[in-house]
């Protein structure tokens, strides 16, 4: 208690700098949108791509007159991939900075944590990367946390889609899992196994391995899997971890094995992976066995709209847009559309407007399912190819398109539109 004196001055200082000044009036001059994603550590590129996507959207909107005349201002923060940081950021963005709308978010855990507090913050959150099916099936549909939407495909993409594709491959009889040791990895595998078994009871799970966050040496896991000689491996570690894992798999000679047919890298279509994999794809190290999908692919569909988006992105940043960029871009446009439709920033009205909304994304129309706030759209899967005339990086080619209606799970009392 000796020197509590200093505290008072600090407290006074605190009041000076932090007294908040904002509250939402109907359509203020500046509409503030707040994003967050992971921009530090080994997955920093996902957040970084979100910033790029958001920058394009904000610039386009402001150049074409803003949202009903209001300029858009964006602030983006580092979620550090921690729920505690993300909730704090969200509170800061809404309560102090005065954000009217939130977007971004990379992980399942953070998605769930934020969905729980969004009603208190009384804002809309559109998640652009976190993929857990628990968000739409449990948090939004069952618990009714209706302030949260998702502008990206859920784990159906990582689990059910590959099952739909490979159920028709008679040469695949044994499968194995290399899971990211958290719910995204477990959920994806569970969906994959369940779906595949439904169509192909003969298929056998021969091995399972898992790796936690920040794992660097995958040889023990790979080795354990290779001992069981699976025809297919479904792998969920993403970003830098996925890249290391694939390099180590090459070194172990996995792709040389005649019994090995398919490596399905769930988020393998991500740009950071594509860039990193390029030398090995170019050298033919994968023998065409590396498959992947993503939550948006820059090379699908081959429409003028998508091409224009990709060209603009490349012009500006010298890279290809990742799905986190495209989804953030779309999310911001969805918000714009909702505001324009309701002519207000009232959260409840915006929720109503977003439910069932059809929005034009770079890759075509997405429909926000009213029951569970899930954006429904198709993303194909493919295997890695390299073609210099198309792209300096490796990319997913030989795309297999399965319409979303065939592999999305539906809410129980759901009727197709």
């Amino acid at each position, binding site marked *: 208690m000796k*020197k509590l004196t200093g505290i008072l001055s600090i407290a006074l200082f*605190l009041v000076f700098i932090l007294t908040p000044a904002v509250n939402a009036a109907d359509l203020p001059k500046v509409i503030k949108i707040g994003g967050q994603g992971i921009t530090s550590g080994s997955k920093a590129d996902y957040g970084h791509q979100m910033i790029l996507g958001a920058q394009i959207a904000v610039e386009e909107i402001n150049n074409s007159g803003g949202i009903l005349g209001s300029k858009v201002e964006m602030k983006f923060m580092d979620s550090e991939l921690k729920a505690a940081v993300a909730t704090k950021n969200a509170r800061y963005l809404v309560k102090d900075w005065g954000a009217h709308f939130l977007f971004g978010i990379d992980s399942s855990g953070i998605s769930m944590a934020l969905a729980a507090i969004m009603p208190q913050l009384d804002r809309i959150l559109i998640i652009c990367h976190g993929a857990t099916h628990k968000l739409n099936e449990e948090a939004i549909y069952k618990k009714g946390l209706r302030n949260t939407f998702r502008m990206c495909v859920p784990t159906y993409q990582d689990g059910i889609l590959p099952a739909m594709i490979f159920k028709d491959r008679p040469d695949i009889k044994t499968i194995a899992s290399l899971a990211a040791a958290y719910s995204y990895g477990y959920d994806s595998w569970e969906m994959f196994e369940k779906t595949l078994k439904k169509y192909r009871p003969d298929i056998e799970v021969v091995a399972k391995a898992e790796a936690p966050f920040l794992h660097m040496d995958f040889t023990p896991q790979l080795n354990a899997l290779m001992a069981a000689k699976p025809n297919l491996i479904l792998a969920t570690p993403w970003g830098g971890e996925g890249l290391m894992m694939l390099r180590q798999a090459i070194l172990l000679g996995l792709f040389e094995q005649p019994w090995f047919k398919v490596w399905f890298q769930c988020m393998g279509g991500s740009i950071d992976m594509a860039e990193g994999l390029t030398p090995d794809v170019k050298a033919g190290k994968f023998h065409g066995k590396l498959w992947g999908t993503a939550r948006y692919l820059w090379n699908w569909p081959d429409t003028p709209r998508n091409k224009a988006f990709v060209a603009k992105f490349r012009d500006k940043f010298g890279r290809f847009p990742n799905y986190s960029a495209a989804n953030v871009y779309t999310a911001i446009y969805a918000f714009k559309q909702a505001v324009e439709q309701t002519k207000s920033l009232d959260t409840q009205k915006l929720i109503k407007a977003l439910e069932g909304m059809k929005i034009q994304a770079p890759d075509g129309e997405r429909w926000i399912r009213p029951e569970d706030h899930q954006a429904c759209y198709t993303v194909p899967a493919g295997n890695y190819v390299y073609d210099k005339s198309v792209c300096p990086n490796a990319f997913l080619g030989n795309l297999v398109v399965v319409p979303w209606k065939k592999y999305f799970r539906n809410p129980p009392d759901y009727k197709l539109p």
Partner: protein
Amino acid sequence: MTWLTNTLVLSINSHRFKLVWLGAFIIFLFILPLFSGDYLLYMVMQMAILCLLSYSVNLLLGYTGLLSFGQAGFYACGAYACGKVLLAGASLLPGIVIGVAVAAIAAIILGFFCVRHTAIYFAMLTLAFGMMIFSLTQKWVNFTGGDDGLIGIPRAALNFFYIFNIKMDTIPAYYYFVIAATLIAIYILYRILNSPLGLIFQGIRDSETRVSFVGISVRKSRLICFTIAGMYAGLGGALLAPLEQTITPSASHWINSTDPIIATLLGGMYNFSGPIVGSVIYFLLKDIIVRFTMNWMLILGIIIIILVLTFRGGVMGAFRAYLLPWLKSRLRQGA
């Protein structure tokens, strides 16, 4: 100007004026919700929780001479236990009490092993135990929710039989609860540190052998200290659970143990108010840097480096060593 220095020096030196400052500070905390927004209150609550964690660290570091890298483990014990209890539908008080109790039990069990060591071995052992708790929170999916953590913890009402029942769902309501709990906890710690037990802790910091040769069991005293420290960390966690309404395993990661250590060093570790000052400054520093730049780690890192190389006594230490004599000399000149 002279008047100002006059008042300042007086207020620093005399006990009565110190109490006036303290009273003003507490009143300030209690009237804050009248004129501030929710985010400021939320931040003050976060600071209060960091402050409890820093006291937990400083009780060990500044008062008993032990550097713990595992306080985040007890913090998580408190948070998870409280979260579980609240999810089961209990009211706020049992949640907090059970959170603290679970942290205390964990501290007694792990402390039994830890207090046999000092210095780096103690630091490493607490690190190991903290990370064991971390891997438990991550892998014991049925109980802890695994990597997603406990989600949607209710901010239950504060009721005590039929005597009172206060709703906690607004930020200001919970703010009063957190501030009251923190102030009471800090007051109790103040009493402990000035009591015979606190004197023994400080004796152990200065000279372990001497303490044992005046007839006091060093291990037993250290275990008591470790347990109290665990309880404070647990209280911080227990208060966090209803605030954040989500608890994830990263709460128990060792990186989380470094925050209160930095805050303590920042404030000054041989000073009772050091952890308060340190937590407030550290939290503001981080919060403000994050707002202005994505390169917050660089700036924070540089600030910490400068701090460690120049002001090892922390802010309060520097205040005492430089500012106070200066003020006094100014006063003398004026007189």
